[in-house]
């Protein structure tokens, strides 16, 4: 009996790590502190926990953009001073830190978040305090917020092109594997609607808890399904365990390719290219994307952080987001979020991925879709692109099959 009691105590103690604070409750618009010769911005990323594998690189990339802008004179004559906070891969912590950045540090804008769960957690905080968040990662769409600029891809700029690509390759039977939270669940709902309308079959759908490392059963299920391809929406380092198990099960990119929407160069590097060579990814940018702007970006990033550090799509979107904010502020001649928002429509920037344009109505940006293949060197080579930037359509209004989604 005492053993059971001790066990209960063990369970209770290990749950103590979770924090329960939520974001701020003030209705007053937060005033950015721009009194001195600097302007503060917040960087909100997971620097620890399961998402750190991805988010640390985004923070580094944001810092690079800020350094570059400061070196060329700053924004409206003020130097940018970044305040970095650790969201710790924990959604309530994200909300708490967002509130701290807005109210205590009085930042002019905040850049960061990766998982949709963290974005959903901070969304009410930014809306309540009327402060701006620049979100740099592809996501599942079906969202708009007056205080968030989405600089990563929305569904019609990533997931839909990936499905179009699979269809064009004759891959009709697909299997869905994802982490168990908002992004994969919503994305898979969209994929199932697409499949139904396009003569594709979804053979199965499996979710593993975020951070999970036990994938042998899922690999067995995928193998037994005899699907043509796997659509992977796993996040963070669960991908490490998944791809190890995938290879152990004897599944290969030629036999059953995996299309991933959350694995970029940095993740390829830490998972190991021996597990990923030949697998597909869907993004808007790769380190190998041609163009002078990208050559400059890659060179500057490697000079600052090390020659062996790759650049990736979310890093590029984060880097671009700082420049877009700068352009908006300069057009508005003010740091005031309302004026910045009003000035946003039509702002363009020669980004490493190519020219991007802000769509003021949805606060998303026009982006080119790119499908890539992982090489044995760990870099991703483009195998297809959409030719021109695609207009963002977060609610998939342009697709009849998506009418039932919300």
């Amino acid at each position, binding site marked *: *009996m*005492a*053993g*059971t009691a*001790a*066990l209960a*105590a*063990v*369970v209770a*103690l*290990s749950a103590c*790590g979770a924090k329960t604070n939520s974001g701020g409750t003030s209705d007053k618009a937060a005033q950015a502190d721009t009194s001195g010769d600097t302007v503060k911005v917040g960087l909100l990323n997971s*620097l*620890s*926990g*399961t998402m*750190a*594998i991805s988010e*640390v690189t985004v923070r580094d990339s944001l810092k690079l953009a800020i350094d570059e802008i400061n070196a060329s004179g700053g924004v409206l004559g003020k130097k940018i001073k970044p305040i970095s906070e650790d969201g710790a891969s924990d959604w309530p912590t994200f909300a708490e830190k967002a509130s701290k950045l807005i109210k205590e540090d009085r930042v002019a804008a905040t850049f960061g978040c990766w998982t949709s769960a963290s974005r959903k957690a901070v969304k009410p905080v930014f809306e309540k305090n009327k402060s701006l968040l620049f979100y740099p990662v592809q996501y599942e769409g079906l969202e708009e917020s007056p205080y968030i600029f989405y600089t990563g891809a929305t569904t019609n700029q990533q997931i839909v092109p990936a499905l179009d690509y699979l269809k064009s390759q004759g891959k009709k039977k697909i299997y869905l594997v994802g982490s*168990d939270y908002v992004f994969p669940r919503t994305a898979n709902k969209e994929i199932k609607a697409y499949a139904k309308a396009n003569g594709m079959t979804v053979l199965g759908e*499996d*979710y*593993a*808890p975020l*951070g*999970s*490392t*036990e994938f*042998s*059963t*899922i690999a*067995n*299920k995928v*193998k*037994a399904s005899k699907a043509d391809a796997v659509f992977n929406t796993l996040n963070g*380092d669960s991908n*490490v*365990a998944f791809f*190890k*198990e995938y*290879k*152990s*099960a*004897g599944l290969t990119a030629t036999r059953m390719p995996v299309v991933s929407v959350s694995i970029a160069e940095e993740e390829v590097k*830490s*998972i*190991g290219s*021996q*597990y990923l060579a030949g697998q597909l990814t869907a993004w808007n940018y790769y380190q190998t994307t041609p163009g002078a702007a990208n050559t400059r970006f890659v060179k500057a990033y490697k000079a600052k952080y090390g020659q062996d550090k790759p650049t990736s799509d979310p890093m590029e979107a984060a880097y671009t987001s700082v420049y877009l904010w700068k352009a908006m502020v300069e057009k508005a001649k003010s740091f005031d979020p309302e004026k910045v928002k009003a000035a946003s429509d039509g702002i363009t920037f020669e980004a490493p991925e190519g020219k991007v344009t802000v769509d003021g109505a949805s606060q998303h940006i026009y982006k080119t879709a790119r499908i890539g293949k992982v090489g044995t060197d760990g870099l991703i080579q483009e195998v297809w692109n959409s030719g021109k930037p695609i207009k963002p359509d977060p609610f998939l209004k342009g697709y009849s099959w998506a009418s039932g989604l919300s």
Partner: protein
Amino acid sequence: MTVILGQMFTGVSIGAVLLLIALGLSLTFGQMNVINMAHGEFIMAGAYTTYVLQKSIAGAGLSLIVALPVAFLVSGALGALLEWLLIRRLYLRPLDTLLVTWGVSLMLQQLARDIFGAPNVQTRAPDVLTGNITVIGGDDPLTFASSRLFILGLAVAAVVALSLALRLTPLGRRIRAVVQNRDLAEVSGISTGRVDRTAFFIGSGLAGIAGVALTLVGPIGPTMGTNVIIDAFLVIVVGGIGQLKGSVIVAFVLGVLQSVLEYSTTVSVAKVLVLVAIVAFLQWRPQGLYTVRTRSLV
């Protein structure tokens, strides 16, 4: 058919991982009545040892082989140090050991974060362990993952070695004597302090071995210990505290149960169902599967 066989193998391989993480704990918790919350961090220490060795030794295969004894020594030394510094003052006060070792586990996690950084790291498995072995060929082949076979072999070897050591060696006899009656053992001339420390060294060393095995499955991070410690306690409590045989059977039963449920439902539902099954089992048999002596912790 191959699906069922493949799934049974998956169950057995999950069981092998469970057994490895629980084995050392069965010695320190089961035999010595110490609730060691830092056991998970000893597993983490074993995993990081593998990582460090791989950085300094070229060749993934060689570094893995070297990692097994080194991780055993590193984690074992940490365990012996913990026993000598804190736990020996707390025998017969199991709930106090819980709190103290929980504090130690938090400190070790932070230490790992300071040394290796907050992001998780990975090791490279040797090429022979990244593939699989075909058991039944043909159109619908049955294959077993080599890394899982290696872990299974490791678990079997560890169980055999531990049970032989407990049964046949003078040290094993002394451990059993201390477990059965500490005072009588002491007056018979056994240095119970030394026996305790040695047992703690072995139990913690086995956690190090488990850590090496876990590097073949997933990433290595400061919180990997907390992810596995609950499973380890479940195996031991359900198996019957102090019963090696119980732990072995329960680890494999839970592994197979988990994999079968996972196959027919989803990962999250399977986890819930396994916990429900455990609660129901403990209602029916609160003393666990096997028990000889009282389950009272004192």
